[in-house]
């Protein structure tokens, strides 16, 4: 067991580093402001002609997109491109000589870098909800809100692990950028960012995959569509997926290090 101080330091240092560029954080607000506003116009037109699409009426649909956009825009599906690049250019050596787990350090750094974005994003999402208050459905049950956030935080770690895993592919390929971009696109789509997963054909398949934990499922919890009795089972499923991903990461890491040819420190 490594000393936790290293990970905590990584978390706080990265947060400080992120906070140095406050304008940069502010610009990212558009990720939670613009897409739900744009799609609002589409759904207002479509659901002005039909009452509902599946189980979604206009209010539910608008709420879905506002909330899911917050979750997905703040989930690091591609982890950190730097991981793949450091493997490719050999600078990973600098991380290997440190007495800490590489995955843990990057997770700490990544969470530290995202916290300011999450807080500001929450304000932005509240702003969009206020702007669309005629349509937005505010959840008043604190248990459901808490469960949705907790589920999403699990999804964040799952999303990071997914991205980290794909960055490790750089041990075998010359460049992992394409893989990471694909991972990001696929995960964002499969998390329900483009269209609610329960409106898609073959929905059983999409709802089996783990990406729903980062977007679709927390949003469904927020909307009150997942009963309290179902929550423990969903959390268990999340945990199983997370453990499976972690085992796979360890396996890839060990295999990859055998191939790795780094530069000198």
């Amino acid at each position, binding site marked *: 067991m490594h000393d936790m101080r290293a990970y905590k330091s990584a978390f706080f240092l990265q947060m400080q580093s992120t906070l*140095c*560029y406050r*304008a*940069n*954080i502010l*610009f*990212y607000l*558009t*990720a939670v*402001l*613009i*897409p739900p506003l*744009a*799609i609002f*116009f*589409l759904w*207002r*037109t*479509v659901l002005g*002609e*039909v009452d509902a*699409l599946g189980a979604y009426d206009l209010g539910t649909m608008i709420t879905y997109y506002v909330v899911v956009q917050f979750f997905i825009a703040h989930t690091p599906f591609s982890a950190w491109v730097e991981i793949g690049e450091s493997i490719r250019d050999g600078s990973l050596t600098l991380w290997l000589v440190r007495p800490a787990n590489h995955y843990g350090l990057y997770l700490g750094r990544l969470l530290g870098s995202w916290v300011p974005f999450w807080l500001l994003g929450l304000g932005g999402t509240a702003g969009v909800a206020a702007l669309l208050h005629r349509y937005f459905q505010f959840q008043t049950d604190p248990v459901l809100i808490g469960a949705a956030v907790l589920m999403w935080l699990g999804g964040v770690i799952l999303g990071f692990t997914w991205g980290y895993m794909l960055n490790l592919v750089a041990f075998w*390929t*010359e*460049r*992992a*950028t*394409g*893989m990471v*971009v*694909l991972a*990001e*696109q*696929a995960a964002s*789509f499969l998390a329900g960012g*483009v*269209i609610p997963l329960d*409106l*898609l054909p073959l929905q059983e398949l999409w709802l089996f995959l783990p990406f729903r934990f980062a977007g679709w499922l927390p949003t469904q919890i927020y909307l009150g569509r997942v009963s309290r009795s179902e929550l423990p089972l969903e959390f268990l499923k999340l945990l199983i997926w997370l453990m499976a991903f972690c085992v796979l990461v360890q396996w890839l890491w060990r295999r990859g290090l055998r191939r790795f040819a780094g530069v000198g420190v």
Partner: protein
Amino acid sequence: MGALRVIKELLKLRFQWELAFRIDAILSLLASLLYIVGGVLLFEVIYARVESIGGWGRPEGLALVGTLALLLELEGSLLRGGLQHLPSLVHKGRLEQYLLRPVPAPLLLAFSKAIPTRVIWRLPLGVVVVAYALSLAPPLPERLLFYSLSILISLGIYALMVFCLVCLSFWVIEMQNLFWVIYDLVEFARYPASVYRGVFRLFLSTVLPLLVLANFPVQLLLRGDSPLLLLHQFLVLLGFWGLGWALWRRGLQRYQGAGG
């Protein structure tokens, strides 16, 4: 002519460079495919329930998805990498390596990170969607010409919009996320123009001309709209060219190089 020759050589070199990473190219092709499939699925789910979206039928909706994909691919493959490189050059004071060449620096910069292989790999995806839309509602032949012209002007407008944005790096130090502003704004271009109303629609057609990008080409192709839309696009292009030029000139006055 000299500038064109340099750009041609640049594209050739970048083509050879990219060919070295074939697996990466296949994976990024899949990413593009997913983006288009997402757009198509969204419209298919909607059109399974309604006849039209504010008067836009299924062929128009699909053509919009394909056209926007074409445009984003062209910009993403040929210009985005180079334009996004400007903030880092300004930040590190290394812009001289472009300013000292006997070619207009913005042009050289724009094409410096082009990925021509991506155009070959990915462009057909958008083309297939547009072709399918056309098979559902065949247009008049002259409409194809209007469409092609319109796409070219849209590409110019979009590139200039991104250029104006990256020119802000002369004033803002860390602007990595500023790119997302423009890419997020493109969300407004993904949906039929008819979903927007009144002043907001006018705003999206002039000041922030996102509807001009993909909606106008489709309106010319399948909705039989007047070719005057081309003139509208051209005026918007001129406006952004002027703004880009002014920002570049003012920015260069602020720029401090690191020498070398």
